[in-house]
């Protein structure tokens, strides 16, 4: 009973904290319908905000205890609600719905089927024991330690635990440890349910963000792809960090794309928060984050939108602030990485390792066209090409194209410079490291799909 209460309680608190964030920046309203609709996005925003602050507490020698987490979540919720209450902004007009009864029935059944599948998935996740090696030995191990003793240096920086990739960022272990504290102790089965809730929240966030600029026939298929792509759910249940990273990255990348389109600072703020969290889940998350910000900067520079580079730089500064606490702590404790970044920026070292480029690409490419990912990458490429050929959509199309290529290039770069053998790297991680490219593709599918769906408007829009 305590396990279920803890699971529900922590989930609600993450969502409450996130509603505070969304209310503060004006991306939801103090109305029951709006709050329910934005619950998924709120969960992600709340998890990002509380856990990034939690990492800061930990690195300063504190701890994210259960009372501290509850107070922090309620404070964020209350502060956001107070801000929204003072603003008294009029609500946005509801979009008209134009479905016939039969269409509503079929789509309603699809949504009910999705909900039923997600519930069955949640029940299955809740009884799954920890099994996969790195899942428990790297990620859940750190969650267990954070739950018991905080940032215990004997484990997080001790030589006997060097195998556990101590330099890896700790947002996912902290996420699990908050659930463990809520559940009253470490539960290797129930933690899979928490990861499943993260998936559901990401689906909800895509539906909510998607519904702001596209119709249901655009956002529902994309949500279905993320929900039912077997690779997503399969890898999520390994308790590795790759899919959780992607689940937070997708709405983050989408927000940055939405900012480029609408120049609404709220999207940049939320995108910065989510991408800051993404960069704290995995090193690959940092690569995705850098790639999407560089892509955004390039398309703005190409369009001579110099003034827009300033808010973008501020957004990136926010990401750097979010990344700094853990990086400084890891550096202060001399934690070694198998990715020698310094060497990786040395042209002569890169030339020496250039023979790794083609095999790396050949190993990653088949993963990207896998049916297990619901073909989101090739389908996103189709939409990017169409959008590039459409006046008024070229900036967004170029952004997603550059972000995807940049993310892929960053993974190949990591394969080039890693101290591990290429064969080992490919065999152990090729199927997982493509999650960054996949995340960019899902965001592109939703955003460009929605924009292209209004192609008549695009024809007359200014370039």
């Amino acid at each position, binding site marked *: 009973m305590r396990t279920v209460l803890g699971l529900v309680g922590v989930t609600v608190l993450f969502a409450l904290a996130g509603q505070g964030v969304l209310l503060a920046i004006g991306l939801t309203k103090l109305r029951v319908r709006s709050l329910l609709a934005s619950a998924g996005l709120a969960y992600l925003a709340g998890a990002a905000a509380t856990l990034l602050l939690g990492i800061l507490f930990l690195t300063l020698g504190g701890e994210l205890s259960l009372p501290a987490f509850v107070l922090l979540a309620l404070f964020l919720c209350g502060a956001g609600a107070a801000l929204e209450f003072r603003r008294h902004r009029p609500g946005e007009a509801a979009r008209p719905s*134009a479905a*016939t009864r*039969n*269409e509503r029935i*079929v*789509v309603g*059944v*699809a949504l009910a*089927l999705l909900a039923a*599948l997600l519930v*069955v*998935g949640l029940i*299955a996740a809740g*009884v*799954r*024991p*920890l*099994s*996969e*090696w790195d*899942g*428990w*030995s790297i990620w859940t*191990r750190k969650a*267990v*330690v954070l739950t*018991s*003793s905080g940032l215990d240096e*004997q*484990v997080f920086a*001790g*030589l*006997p*635990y060097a*195998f*556990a990739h101590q330099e890896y960022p700790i947002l996912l272990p902290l996420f699990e440890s908050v659930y463990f504290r809520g559940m009253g102790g470490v539960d*290797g*089965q129930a933690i899979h349910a928490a990861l499943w809730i993260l998936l559901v929240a990401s689906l909800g966030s895509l539906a909510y963000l998607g519904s702001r600029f596209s*119709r249901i*026939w*655009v956002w*529902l*298929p994309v949500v*279905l*792809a993320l929900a*039912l792509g*077997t690779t997503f759910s399969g890898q999520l249940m390994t308790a590795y960090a790759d899919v959780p990273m992607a689940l937070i990255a997708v709405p983050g990348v989408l927000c940055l794309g939405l900012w480029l389109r609408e120049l609404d600072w709220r999207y940049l703020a939320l995108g910065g928060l989510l991408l800051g969290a993404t960069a704290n889940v995995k090193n690959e998350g940092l690569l995705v984050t850098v790639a999407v910000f560089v892509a955004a900067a390039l398309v703005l520079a190409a369009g001579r939108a110099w003034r827009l580079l300033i808010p973008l730089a501020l957004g990136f500064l926010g990401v750097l602030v979010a990344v700094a606490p853990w990086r400084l702590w890891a550096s202060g404790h001399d934690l070694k990485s198998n990715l020698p970044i310094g060497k990786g920026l040395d042209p002569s070292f890169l030339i020496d390792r250039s023979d790794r480029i083609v095999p790396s690409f050949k190993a990653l490419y088949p993963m990207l066209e896998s049916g297990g990912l*619901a*073909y989101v990458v090739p*389908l996103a490429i189709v*939409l990017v090409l*169409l959008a590039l*050929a459409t006046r008024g959509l070229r900036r967004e199309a170029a952004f997603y194209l550059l972000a995807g290529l940049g993310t892929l290039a960053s993974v190949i770069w990591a394969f080039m410079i890693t101290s591990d053998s290429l064969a080992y790297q490919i065999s152990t991680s090729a199927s997982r490291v493509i999650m960054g490219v996949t995340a960019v593709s899902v965001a592109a*599918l939703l955003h460009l*799909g929605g924009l*292209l*769906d209004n*192609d*008549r408007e*695009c024809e007359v829009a200014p370039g």
Partner: protein
Amino acid sequence: MTMLSQAFAVLVAAALLAWRARVRGAPAGIRSAAVAAVLGILVFVTLSGSWTAWQAFRSERRANAAIPAADIETHPGAAIGANVGFVEWLNGKLPPRVSFYLRTTGADDATYQWLTYRLYPRVAVQDSGAHWVVFIGLTPAEAGFGPREFSPVQQYAPGLLLAERRK
């Protein structure tokens, strides 16, 4: 059922496209049609696998629910081939929250990693002078310890030992 879910996927895609065409009220252009095709493929690919996914979730839940509660905690170690029996033996011998020095040949990574996970909050330390020493794959003498350094040296199996320093 797989075929039924595939047929259902086509129905849903058709409904979405029909809905869209009604709202737009105009013949679809190439971009619009391509978007429709992309979305239709997405719906088909995902919903057609829904029955398989449903069955997979249910069978996985049944299989995992059948694992005895006593085995759940040790399942991660067993899954990677660690010597779970030895680790549980240590779990019963070592006092709570002590630190220990782990001496291994390096040949059994699975047991090493599982041991350091399962025994927490007992912490493995780098200090070879720790009060408790765990040996994996070698004896105290082979590891260079003197014959009188430890009082009891308890053996789980050859090469799997727990030694306590003399007080």
